[in-house]
């Protein structure tokens, strides 16, 4: 393999790892842009990954083999929304502490998903391996282009979907009246309230969107890589997605960039192990690589954080 081929494949694998992170990161972004911290992304991903596995399984059994992954994808986002609703009701309506509720979502989602898995699959801690999951789409002609074809045009459908979503999110956030209002609500809710914008409504939308998107993120992992759901299908990706939101400065393009960076750091460890010289290096150092790289970049990337102004504060118009 020449260097360009390797790079092409590196990007290809990077995108596989990144897709779920981008979905989830965008979810976190919408929630946080509305002013609600979502530490529960991990749990929302778990619920999505679980729902995708079960619903796809049922769809396959019901004979919808080809469309099953898509049905699973939709089901996962609905499931994510349900969990996010719990978050929204308690943090927005009942003004509960957002961090605490996020942690609760993580505990509950994992508990419920595995409990249900065991109930549905005869005590088994994991779902059956799905016979129909997403396959990579090779875009005709484009995928034949050297380097670029391998890098960008042989990807899972979810990757194409997420790229589209990044662009849409950017437009929604910065070009539409919805985005302007959402950002105002996250930045300074009483500014929105005093011009007649419902803070509650926009925060609900933000949090529920995060459920839908994180659900898709979890589903992506089930439907493109693991082909089933188990207790450790999601192990930390939700937290990495939070890191991507912060690292990406609450901007869809930034979040996508950060997620791709994390994906790249994951991918590179597999490539590194291909080389002869790598056999001399203890494997643990390869495992550390993504995290150390991230830290190094974070330390290098100084600059004021651009967190939404009201992040984490319940909105109470009576509070002084």
């Amino acid at each position, binding site marked *: 393999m020449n260097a360009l081929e390797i790079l092409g494949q590196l990007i290809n694998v990077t995108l596989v790892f990144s897709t779920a992170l981008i979905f989830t990161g965008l979810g976190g972004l919408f929630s946080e842009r509305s002013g609600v911290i979502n530490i529960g992304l991990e749990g929302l991903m778990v619920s999505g990954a679980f729902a995708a596995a079960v619903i796809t399984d049922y769809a396959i059994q019901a004979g919808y083999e080809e469309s099953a992954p898509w049905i699973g994808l939709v089901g996962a986002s609905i499931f994510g929304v349900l969990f996010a609703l719990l978050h929204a009701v308690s943090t927005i309506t009942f003004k509960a502490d957002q961090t605490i509720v996020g942690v609760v979502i993580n505990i509950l989602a994992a508990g419920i998903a595995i409990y249900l898995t065991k109930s549905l699959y005869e005590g088994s*801690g994991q779902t059956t391996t799905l016979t129909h999951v997403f396959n990579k789409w090779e875009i005709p002609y484009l995928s034949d282009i050297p380097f670029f074809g391998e890098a960008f045009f042989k990807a899972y459908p979810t990757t194409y979907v997420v790229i589209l979503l990044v662009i849409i999110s950017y437009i929604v956030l910065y070009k539409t009246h919805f985005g302007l209002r959402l950002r105002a609500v996250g930045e300074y809710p009483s500014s929105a309230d005093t011009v007649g914008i419902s803070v509650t409504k926009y925060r609900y939308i933000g949090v529920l969107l995060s459920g839908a998107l994180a659900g898709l993120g979890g589903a992506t992992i089930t439907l493109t890589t693991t082909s089933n759901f188990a207790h450790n299908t999601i192990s930390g990706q939700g937290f990495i997605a939070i890191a991507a939101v912060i690292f990406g400065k609450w901007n869809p393009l930034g979040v996508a960039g950060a997620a791709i960076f994390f994906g790249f750091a994951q991918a590179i460890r597999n490539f590194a192990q291909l080389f002869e010289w790598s056999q001399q290096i203890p494997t643990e150092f390869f*495992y550390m690589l993504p995290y150390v790289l991230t830290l190094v970049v974070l330390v290098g990337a100084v600059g004021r954080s651009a967190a939404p102004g009201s992040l984490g504060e319940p909105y109470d118009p009576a509070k002084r």
Partner: protein
Amino acid sequence: GGGSKTNNGASGTNASASPEASAAPEESAAAGAKLKIGMVTDVGGVNDKSFNQSAWEGLQKVTKDTGSETKYLESKGDADMEPNLRAFVSEKYDMTWGVGFLFQDAMGKVAKDNPDSKFGIIDSAVDAPNVVSVNFAANEGSFLVGVVAGLTTKSNKIGFVGGMEIPSVTVFEAGFNAGVKAVNPDAKISRNYTGEFGKPDLGKAAAAVMYNDGVDVIFQVAGGTGNGVFNEATARKKAGQDVWVIGVDKDQSIEFGNEVTLTSMLKGVEAAIYQVSTDLINGKWEGGKSVVLGLKDGAVGLPENNPNISEDIMKKVEEYKQQIISGSLVVPTEVK
């Protein structure tokens, strides 16, 4: 097949599936002595598609054949292993299995404190008069699948995907490497230890990189992570690429199909558990025994049917098998 909703069995109570039916064993026909045999898994859990699952299948067979009551407890962490073993002891189980090398210390202690209880351990050895220890010469079986890989590859590039880089995995790699080199000294072997046993996504990425690099046969010894290797191979096979996976522990063609499963390196956990447990039921139990089961015991090796392996290769495999059994060929246990 999943999807069917059942209410029982979550804790693995087998003969007496649900609590309400706890009188059931009394009613079933006696077949030898009806005993209570327990089993504690490691964190992988009973459905790890690997040795915990094999072990449980062995016990289920015991129940089916003898009507004995069997039950398992899953350990959520290393710290649970000891209380879980003791839970069976205090419930007066006749024998308790610990599945996995991590049980060594816990079982040593529990066995010492409860000399009247009987125990069995897989993949490790405990020196106590009331424990039977069962180990497998995984290097021997791995040598044989190495031979298959070495002779099957067209690209002369072969891959090994491991879970964690620990002796119970590296022993496979050692045997495998030796097997490949014995028949195909020019073959290049890539290795990738993913660091995890339960993450198919990592296995899948590792496999993708290897297949991209031209590897056409991968031996996976990575538990759930290995499922990812199969997933990747299946996708590539569908796309028309000619790639293979060699499974581990069980005949994985049953789950992943013959299209991608070249063969599997069986580890007879199920048989061993069945054997030792029925020995107990039939009064032939020998406490303190520690066995290493290898090719000669039929406890490791290839499955009976190998539709993807040619006659010629099978012949070679058989040759090496005999050499190993006879002792004229000693398979290394450590990667050089």
